[in-house]
């Protein structure tokens, strides 16, 4: 701790700020207090905004994270933000805190996985991969859970909306970033995340034309995209 305090002072000496920043040990305490007080992950910028002038939340977080290694609670990274969460091996103690999440349908789980692994994904791409229409309510449910959100519109004709996963998704599944999704590397190596267009067919084959539409524009923005109007029929009536 003494070292940390010296470090902080050392930095200050090189480029004297208007006000002395608190010693690093103190900054670590402050970050600790803020992270403990909130249930939501906090970004480094948010932390810095709340700390006194001249503090370095990033460095304080490094210290704090190491301090909590192996403890009952941990400092975890959630996308660009940080949060304190209980260690997963102690979940069995928390039966009373367990929140019953609404049982997700198979369609919803698959849709979520497709958005996560292929993001940003359009509705048409989800339908292409699953081979059925995404029913009303499936996307709605995932939006409501705040696991997916709208991303940028695709810059293709029809400008379809896209979906991406959220920080809440990362937080819920204990992921540091979407790059840490399980099996992502294998999928990529196997070419299963590519948007491989259906082989081109001679005119007049509706099916192939439809598939072309769906594949288009996932990466490249030059081809003719029918947008998401031409999806397959609805999966169920609900």
């Amino acid at each position: 701790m003494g070292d940390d305090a010296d470090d902080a002072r050392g930095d200050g000496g090189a480029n004297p700020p208007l006000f002395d920043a608190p010693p690093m040990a103190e900054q670590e305490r402050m970050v600790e207090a803020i992270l403990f007080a909130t249930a939501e992950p906090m970004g480094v910028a948010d932390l810095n905004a709340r700390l006194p002038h001249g503090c370095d939340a990033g460095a304080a977080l490094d210290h704090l994270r190491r301090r909590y290694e192996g403890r009952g609670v941990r400092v975890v990274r959630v996308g660009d933000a940080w949060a304190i969460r209980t260690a997963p091996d102690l979940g069995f103690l928390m039966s009373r805190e367990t929140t019953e999440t609404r049982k997700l349908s198979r369609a919803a789980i698959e849709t979520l996985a497709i958005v996560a692994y292929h993001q940003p994904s359009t509705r048409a791409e989800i339908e292409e991969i699953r081979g059925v229409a995404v029913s009303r309510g499936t996307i709605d449910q995932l939006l409501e859970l705040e696991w997916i959100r709208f991303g940028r519109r695709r810059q293709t004709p029809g400008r379809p909306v896209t979906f991406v996963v959220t920080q809440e998704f990362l937080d819920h599944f204990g992921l540091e970033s979407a790059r840490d999704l399980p099996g992502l590397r294998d999928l990529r190596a196997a070419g299963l995340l590519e948007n491989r267009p259906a082989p081109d067919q001679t005119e007049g084959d509706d099916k192939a034309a439809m598939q072309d539409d769906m594949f288009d524009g996932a990466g490249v923005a030059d081809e003719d995209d029918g947008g998401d109007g031409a999806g397959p029929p609805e999966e169920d009536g609900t």
Partner: protein
Amino acid sequence: MAEVESLSAHVAERVAAEALIVDVDGFEGPLDLLLTLSRTQKVDLRQISVLALARQYLAFVERAKQLRIELAADYLVMAAWLAFLKSRLLLPPDPEDDGPSGEELAAHLAFQLERLEAMRDVAAKLMARDQKGRDFFARGLPERVERIRQVTYTATLVDLMQAYARIRTKDEFRPYVMDRDRVMTMEEALDRMRGLIGFAGAWTDLASYMPEGWDADPVRRRSATASHFAASLELAKAGKIEIRQGETFAPIQIRRRDG
């Protein structure tokens, strides 16, 4: 004896066929069905025989037809496409045709199946992860200092979109209700004009019959103009007044019709 045997065999066949059909409800579309059928081949999806798969699928659809079970349109579309694919795979390639070969189409179908299976697989892995609120937990007692209270207003994107959807579609949903305060009905206009018309011996601009203050708001002005115009037509029909207009868009004038 033989009869009994054949009967029971027949029943067993039907039961097996129906079991498969009943299961259609459990399938999430033709691709899902194909993936399930492909598992009977017990090989890596990359080595799958698409031809055999196409035959299985077509046999399945055929059986459904025999049992007069209605299959959803997308199952039939897939059947048609697989029949086409089957013919491509069986017939020697036509040198005239520059479309994709049967092998290319089959390879793509295999890719789709493999991709769907892969997504199922990772979806299961994802759901098997430690989850917040089940395996690990956030702060149960977020702290608040009550002394300083600051109210912030919040709304979610869904609120915003629903609000917009509500406004833009309120005409679709709302039971029809007149906004009376900004609407003047023809009956009202008629009542007004009946009272005033007695004084209109000379040609008078219809606009001058408009009630005071009604031109302040465009919506009300439109409503009043329309109702007074309709009322004047009504009065003319009843022979109470005469109407004239110099040219298109010129002011409409009315006067009392004597006698």
